[in-house]
């Protein structure tokens, strides 16, 4: 198992959900314990993938979408996600729409939520200093291995090898969506067409998903209503760098 010996903690990368998931544990715990925690995190991520992947016909979300699983039979996780997506749909005036593609696709919520749950579990397990990066959706807590706040680069919208902003913090959730990796994959549910207008959007908060329902991207960029709503809850970072100084947590809690 590749482990960095020059620092405390453990860093591991695995390919899950069709992307790279990186876990950085910065707590000075025994190696065996760190590996155990990492195993649990990646097992959780695989469980989420198996349950929520829209690429797998046998995933629970696909079976539910086909009517093969009733809501009353659904797992607690699926019911939770459906409820959260419904809440987001209401909170965003319909812009966050798990049915925007015509079929159930909660992927816009699931990845960040999975990272949040992993982070919560790590904290509960006594590993309060960590960074979970699920394909660009980042959740950090505590301090980095160097004992300083985590430093999260925001990928520059036009330069794959550069960052346009660096966020530093001890309790941050950062999610970025952009067209530079997968093209115009974000649908505007009102027009039923790919959203355009922004190349990249980053949302920063102190948590996401429940309980504060901070919405992760993607959502339709370039929509004034959407942008206004975004600004009211979190601080977006559009193509040009802005400084998300106030990361105001949204409403509840």
């Amino acid at each position, binding site marked *: 198992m590749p*482990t960095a010996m020059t620092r405390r903690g453990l860093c591991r990368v695995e390919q899950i959900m069709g992307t790279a998931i990186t876990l*950085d544990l910065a707590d000075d715990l025994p190696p065996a314990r760190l590996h155990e925690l990492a195993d649990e995190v990646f097992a959780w991520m*695989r469980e989420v993938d198996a349950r929520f992947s829209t*690429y797998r016909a046998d995933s629970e979300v696909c079976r539910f979408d086909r009517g093969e699983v009733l809501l009353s039979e659904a797992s607690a996780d699926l019911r939770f996600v459906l409820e959260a997506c419904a809440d987001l749909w209401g909170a965003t005036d319909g812009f966050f729409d798990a049915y925007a593609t015509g079929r159930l696709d909660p992927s816009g919520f699931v990845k960040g939520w999975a990272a949040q749950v992993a982070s919560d579990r790590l904290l509960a397990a006594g590993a309060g200093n960590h960074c979970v990066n699920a394909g660009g959706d980042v959740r950090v807590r505590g301090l980095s291995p160097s004992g300083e706040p985590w430093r999260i680069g925001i990928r520059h919208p036009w330069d794959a090898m550069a960052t346009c902003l660096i966020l530093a913090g001890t309790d941050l959730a950062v999610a970025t969506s952009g067209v530079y990796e997968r093209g115009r994959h974000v649908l505007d549910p009102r027009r039923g067409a790919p959203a355009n207008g922004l190349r990249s959007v*980053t949302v920063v908060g102190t948590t996401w998903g429940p309980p504060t329902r901070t919405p992760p991207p993607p959502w339709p960029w370039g929509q004034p209503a959407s942008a206004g709503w975004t600004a009211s809850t979190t601080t977006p970072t559009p193509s040009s760098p802005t400084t998300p100084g106030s990361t105001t947590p949204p409403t509840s809690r």
Partner: protein
Amino acid sequence: MRRAFLAITGLAASTTALVVLKGSPDATQVAQNLPTAQPVNPTGPGADPSVAPGAPGGDPTAGAPTPSVSAKAPVSPKPGKTTARPSGTRTTTKAPSAPRTTTKAAQPTTRRVTGSGFDNEYGYVQVQIVVSGNRIVEAVALSLPSGGESDIHSGDVRSRYDGGGGEVVQKQNANLNTVSGATETSNSYKQSLRSAIEQAF
């Protein structure tokens, strides 16, 4: 062919920046959200265990990862999916040429670290980095897809990222812990590079 370009050379090496990346460090603003060194509060927001629904390990199908996007069938038949694959390195084990030591970073010894190899639909990619202290001083692709148009793209990749003056070396930023970017599809060079970085630091 656009896809081919994306799959092979679309190196949005944002995650490269694990340790890494970005030109002049001072050119980037830093937003600090919280007081430095604020201790973690185990009972703080988000710590509520009831937030995490479901029991872990409840799904026996959890073992298999989703195939990456690039693992799907090619859009069109590609000429020559041949790959110059270094023998015996096709696993996640390190190549013999990577004598990773437990030397402390304080000692600026040069280490050569080989990343795991990754397949994409056009071939096999494996990246090696040379690390001195906390810096990547050289990156080299041990293996890239070859044959047909892949030769062109692989050449582009080499000229852009490889070597002591390539972007991997030039744009590294040791002051980053991670990078937030749009969800990446499979990117073999980056994944292998990340794997190497993960081992090296």
